[in-house]
């Protein structure tokens, strides 16, 4: 009881810290005045502290939108593939899926963006494609690992007791695989969050824009401003994930 109580207290504390961090981040993103204040203290001689045309809030929103949609796509496709190749009827495709996955992961996202550019044009579409392909591996691979982690004896007992394949999947296998799948999703999200920045090269928007703009005009303050937001979101989401599902 004491143990449980103290864990609950720890959770509350962690929750409070996260909420406070999120608040600070929101204040920074929403207020150009705060941005200037923070950045000026670090780079007193920078030529400017905000992007000339786009607000940081807008960039953050686009960035998150791209990241979330790419992750969602990876989850839908990756989990489906992962479940399929671990069924008795799809097992023959398991090696193919694993290899394809590895191949996709080895493609540099920037190359995908450039290659997809002629077909999908300017803007967010090539970036979304690149992010989706790139983050498919962690989701699919973790789903496969998750289902493969279900003990043979457990499956044998489930079959022997007369479970249908679908019942076995939902009652037995999915709950055991779930933590692994979640881990894959977390991995994919963080990966996309960072990689989405390169989309700015072909006008996908997002926080890559302010970083690019800083790089071009040799203004470290702008580069830092974009980076602060990306890494804060990464840190925050990491701890939110572990808060939501870590303690099980």
């Amino acid at each position, binding site marked *: 009881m004491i143990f449980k109580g103290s864990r609950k207290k720890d959770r509350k504390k962690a929750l409070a810290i996260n909420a406070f961090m999120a608040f600070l981040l929101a204040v920074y993103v929403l207020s150009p005045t705060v941005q200037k204040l923070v950045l000026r203290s670090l780079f007193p001689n920078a030529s400017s502290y905000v992007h000339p045309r786009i607000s940081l809030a807008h960039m953050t929103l686009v960035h998150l939108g791209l990241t979330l949609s790419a992750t969602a796509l990876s989850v839908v496709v990756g989990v489906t593939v992962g479940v399929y190749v671990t069924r008795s009827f799809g097992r023959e495709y398991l090696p193919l899926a694993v290899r394809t996955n590895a191949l996709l992961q080895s493609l540099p996202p920037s190359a995908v963006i450039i290659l997809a550019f002629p077909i999908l044009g300017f803007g967010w579409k090539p970036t979304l494609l690149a992010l989706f392909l790139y983050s498919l591996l962690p989701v699919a691979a973790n789903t496969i690992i998750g289902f493969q982690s279900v*003990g043979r*004896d*457990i*499956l*044998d*007992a*489930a*079959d*022997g*007791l*007369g*479970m*249908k394949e679908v*019942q076995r999947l939902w*009652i*037995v296998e999915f*709950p*055991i695989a779930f933590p692994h799948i979640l881990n894959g999703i977390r991995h994919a999200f963080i990966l996309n969050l960072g990689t989405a920045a390169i989309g700015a090269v072909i006008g996908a928007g997002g926080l890559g824009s302010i970083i690019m703009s800083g790089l071009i005009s040799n203004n470290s303050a702008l580069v830092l401003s974009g980076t602060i937001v990306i890494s804060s979101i990464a840190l925050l989401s990491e701890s939110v994930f572990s808060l939501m599902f870590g303690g099980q």
Partner: protein
Amino acid sequence: MREAIIEFSGVEVKYGEVEALRGIDLKIPGGKVTVIIGPSGCGKSTMIRTVNRMVEPTRGTVRYQGQDVKTFDKIELRRQMGYAIQNVGLIPHLTVEENILLVPRLLGWSEDKKKKRAKELLDLIGLDAGKYANKYPSELSGGEAQRVGVARALGADPPVLLFDEPFGAVDPLKREELQDEFIRIQRRLRKTVLFITHDLSEAIRLADYMVIMKDGVVVQADAPERLLKEPGSDFVEQFLGTDRTLQRLTLLTADRIARPLRAEKEEFVGLSGVSWKPLEEGEILAKFKKDSGEFAYRTVRVSIHAARPYASLKECVSRFLALGLPAIPVVDDSGKVVAEVLFDDIQRITKEG
């Protein structure tokens, strides 16, 4: 024999080139415990798995209640046959209660009926419902998990039970306890049980009908008393014979062959010539004569080297090996040295066997 409820005729199973079963003809009596025993790889697991169609025979038929099992729906068939295996395979994220109610849940029983059944089952296997119902498999000991595995097999009260070494993963002492429970339960329920083991004493204790297998065929099948009396082949004789000695060592206890000690000052001396001198808690100093005639000393740790009066001789043997002296002391529950067991005596018994 009474009406056979399960019948194998000419059953062969091939896995690629490997022949797991090479023509099984066997009738399984209803309402009795049929124990299948044989060396590992003899095809015993494959055989019971053909009954609930986990394995399909390459040739031949398995009949259940007179009908080819192929004519049954696989799922329906399995739900009529409780299934328990050596490594239990409890579902880790479900509680004990949810695990044992798995088949009732699949069959769509009402909540009331399920609740009642859970309590019945836990009572039956001797686990306190209040304490165990909501535990998770990871919180159970090996013996408790195996009990729960058996309860899960009994879940929806199936007429047939397929048990593949259900007590295989616990230590011998716990195993005997589980066997006692099983005998008690079976007296009440009178199920048709197909029970696999590779432990001969377990087989002899539980079987109404015993099937000895080797290399994918049935070597002999009969009541255990008749098998022991009239082994039909060298293999059966050897199989029963080699283990018979060990079995006697399991059944005999230390107090049966222990030798008395006389007290000399603070020491106890007996026939072995070793003098045992109790030291502080849990230790005894053993003084003995080496071959060279000099005296030597060894510290005896009671927990490792000494035997309780009710320890089996099998256990005594391992304690001898640990201590390396011609005798080990026997201590009572309060830790007092009361007797000694001589290695020579054990050897004599194994020769007699």
